[in-house]
């Protein structure tokens, strides 16, 4: 099986604190790994390491495919209508508008297309961020608390989108306090690493 993402003997230092060391993991097509653990255990830092936004203090991080990331910031221009804000990322990802249409439909955001991003609620913004992830077509998904503020219906849509992504040969690294009911999910307890 081809590996999409591989972390080898990685250590992460934030400030003066060693968050974890000797961490290795590999994600192949269809794999999903759930990072769990208490606040400050390094879940988000591990996501950022995998995304290449942080450099590991030790070890190597290898990404063999494109990456899509959700973190605490939505990265959507607040003054724009939702659809135009998402279209910007579609152009950056060089995917066509239909991909955005389909992804907005998957996240049930089509009725909100003309609403300015600034007027959206936390959960709606998370759904919008998911639209960007889905539309990007990137095989590696790095989702940091993607369900924050989402209601049950939205969580179900998120789980469905993840299942579809894995069925298409995508991989998922999920940092969350809840398993979200995703089937066939590997676990890594970050609390035991420190």
């Amino acid at each position, binding site marked *: 099986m081809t590996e999409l993402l591989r972390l080898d003997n990685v250590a992460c230092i934030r400030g003066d604190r060693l968050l974890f060391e000797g961490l290795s993991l590999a994600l192949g097509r269809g794999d999903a790994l759930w990072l769990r653990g208490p606040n400050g255990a390094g879940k988000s830092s591990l996501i950022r390491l995998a995304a*290449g936004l942080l450099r590991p203090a030790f070890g190597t991080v290898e990404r063999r495919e*494109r990456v899509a*990331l959700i973190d605490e*910031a939505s*990265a*959507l221009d*607040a003054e724009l209508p939702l659809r135009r804000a998402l279209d910007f*990322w579609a*152009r*950056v990802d060089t995917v066509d508008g239909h991909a955005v249409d389909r992804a907005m439909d998957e996240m049930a955001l089509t009725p909100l297309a003309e609403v300015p991003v600034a007027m959206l609620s936390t959960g709606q913004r998370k759904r919008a961020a998911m639209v960007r992830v889905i539309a990007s077509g990137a095989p590696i998904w790095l989702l940091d608390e993607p369900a924050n503020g989402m209601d049950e219906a939205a969580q179900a849509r998120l789980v469905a989108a993840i299942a579809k992504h894995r069925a298409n040969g995508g991989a998922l690294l999920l940092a969350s306090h809840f398993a979200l009911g995703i089937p066939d999910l590997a676990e890594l307890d970050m609390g035991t690493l420190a």
Partner: protein
Amino acid sequence: MTALIALFWRDLRRAWGSGALWLPVLFFLLVATAFPFAVGPDAPLLRRAGGGMVWVAALLAALLPIDRLVRPDKDAGVLDQLAVRGFADEVIAAMKIGAHAIGFGLPLLIALLPVSALLAQDAARVETLAIGIAIAVPALASLVVLSAALTANHKGGSAIGGLLVLPLAVPLLIFGAGMLDPSGRGAVKLLAASSLLLTVIGPFAAGAALRGLRE
């Protein structure tokens, strides 16, 4: 390429959106209006000092949007999302510099006409000023984006940003204003040389500063 055009347009749209287009222009006009009141309505004096005043006002007008260039993008996670997609920080910086150069440079050159009239500049001097400012705009944009990136992690960064820009912009001021002096014939070449240097260094320095924001 589509992606780069999208980046550039986004920065330009944000520079001109919600009335921000008129901010440097208004500021520029404000200085030119206030100056004759402070100095007095002596036309020869205004003509002599006005050219230098235009340069000072242009420099300060370039500084105005300094806190809107990088910090909002950093806070909104836009810079992270671009980094994840593998964009080089230098490329992101270059797009920001280009968009800022056009974003404030173009309106500034248009506002130069009424400003010159207020400061009793004749046609020949207006032409010299326009050429000089057009040459200096990319360098000013480089400096401003660089200091915006350097100060994006600090509250009140715009004040520090201004202090960072000023010493590096002094050559532009000297040679730009020097072009107005009848004996300063080499000034335009020196202005072009210093502008070229700053414009070339700008994206790399600002790119390094953007990279530093992630650590």
